[in-house]
């Protein structure tokens, strides 16, 4: 398993504002999701990885090399920045071609690669019109296109899905999955969990500049085994169901919350999930509570996220 990224006590400060705080980790190949709330240090880490800024302390190696100002490494790196910034008066095609030319490709090869990359992002139709006329989704795709045009070994994307409407999001997810499958290492950051959830095998959780957890979702879950698992129930007679459930010794706590959905919701915490479900099925079979939802909240990132941040 080639290590794509190693960093040791990596820190970066902007004046007293901490961007990243002593991060020591190692990332392997495949698609990796970098997750954390706004301002957790995701962008700082990504910009350190692509060598746009220097670490304030500690060190990091990308594909075995120190990234800052490392021109050779940039041939193998693709970076899609977070900010929605492009050369407004150039056409999408010209932008990608110029960046390829600067990447060291001949005019002819730059032309071909630019067309291929834009085609992959289904931009062929509008690639010769000016970027200022593009919609948010199309601008996002140009930014991704310039990152993949030179077939980088390691692709880094900062919040690639923000501001896209549902269609655009699905397309970008498909593309990233395809790239991952074709062997490119992909590291992308996001704070929209359901995007990360069904795309990545591995996640890295950072918060307030610190590494909180790393690994596959179930692994991360197991890592936090000391936290009891949570099951969320939705029922018409939620309180009666709660009264019935509080009796079972597998249940650690029951919380009733009337959320924005119409029905009340129960949030159960239990140490042993298997026995709990057996008990739940028995109770539900015995009496009609109008149960409309049973969801083991932990499977989704949102729960893991809430646990770690709360």
């Amino acid at each position, binding site marked *: 398993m080639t290590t794509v990224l190693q960093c040791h006590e990596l820190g970066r400060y*902007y004046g007293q504002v901490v961007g990243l705080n002593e991060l020591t980790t190692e990332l392997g190949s495949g698609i990796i999701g970098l997750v954390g709330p706004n301002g957790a240090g995701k*962008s700082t880490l990504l910009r350190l990885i*692509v*060598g*746009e*800024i*220097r670490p304030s302390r500690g060190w990091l190696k990308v594909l075995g090399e120190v990234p800052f*100002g490392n*021109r*050779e490494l*940039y*041939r193998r*790196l693709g*970076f899609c*920045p*977070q*900010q929605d*910034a*492009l*050369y*407004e*008066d*150039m056409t999408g095609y*010209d932008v990608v071609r*110029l*960046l390829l*030319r*600067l*990447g*060291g490709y001949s005019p002819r090869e730059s032309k071909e690669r630019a067309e291929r990359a834009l085609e992959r992002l289904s931009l062929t139709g509008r690639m010769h019109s000016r970027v200022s006329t593009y919609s948010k989704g199309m601008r996002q795709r140009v930014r991704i296109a*310039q990152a993949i045009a030179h077939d980088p070994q390691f692709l880094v994307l900062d919040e690639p899905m923000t501001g896209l409407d549902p269609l655009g999001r699905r397309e970008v997810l498909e593309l990233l999955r395809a790239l991952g499958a074709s062997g490119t290492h992909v590291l992308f950051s996001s704070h929209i969990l359901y995007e990360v959830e069904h795309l990545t095998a591995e996640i890295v959780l950072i918060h307030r500049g610190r590494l909180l957890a790393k690994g596959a979702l179930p692994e991360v879950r197991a890592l936090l085994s000391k936290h009891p698992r949570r099951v969320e129930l939705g029922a018409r007679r939620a309180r009666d169901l709660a009264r019935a459930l509080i009796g079972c010794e597998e249940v650690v706590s029951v919380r009733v919350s009337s959320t924005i959905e119409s029905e009340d919701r129960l949030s159960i915490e239990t140490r042993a999930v298997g026995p709990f479900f057996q008990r739940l099925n028995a109770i539900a079979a015995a009496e009609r509570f109008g149960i409309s939802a049973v969801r083991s909240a932990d499977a989704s990132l949102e729960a893991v996220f809430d646990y770690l941040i709360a």
Partner: protein
Amino acid sequence: MKELARAAWILFQAHLWRIFRTRRAYIAAGLAGLPVALAVLVRFVSHFEGPPPLELLVSIVWFFLVQTIVPLVSLVMASAVIAEEIEDRTITYLFTRPIPRPSILLGRWLAVALPIAVMLVASAELVVRLLENTGTEQGAKEWMPEGMHGSILQTVLMGGVVYSALFAAAGALFKRPMLIGLGYTFVYEGFLGNLPGANQKATVVFYLRSFLFSEHRSLAGEAEEAIFSIPLVEPGAAVRSLGLILVGALVLGAWRFARREYVLAA
């Protein structure tokens, strides 16, 4: 070094065409056109018996074109060379390319220096052409001291190139290059440049003045007092000094630009 040249050349080509689509280019062209418009106005409205008095030429070419328009045009075009990439946050794409960073400053500066030079020289040429054959024909030819026409064009060319290098470097060195440029042109040079005393040697306008007027001292007539407050340097030395300022500005700007980390607004 080869990489630097190649990257600079690619950026020069890419941005050379972009310049003509930006609003800055139109503002600069408008400014460069003002002296020509003035010359046309003077030519048609007033009627001179012989060739126009030399004061008119000095007034438009020197006081208006070289002292005001050249720095302004250079400022409008060149101050954005780096500042624009940072403000639009497109610098990230260039920083993550396998190219030496100074090539970005060099390439983009060349891409503005060329249009600036073309605009200013064209403006100077038109002004001289228009004033040259006003009034009757026969006196026109030997009206201007020989070689003067050539040195006017050279002065304007060098002015544009040096000023644009200064302001491009300012874009890499300071956060608000436009303010620095305005301060330099109208306060530092406008004020210091006309004060008697050796401190004039620290301004670009002094060397331009030396280059243009040192051989044609008599040219300015009674305006001489205002211009020649201190002895001028001979043209060769003036050109060398301007060259020194040019290279110095670019090297300093490139050095600072290469080391600087731009914390782009989120």
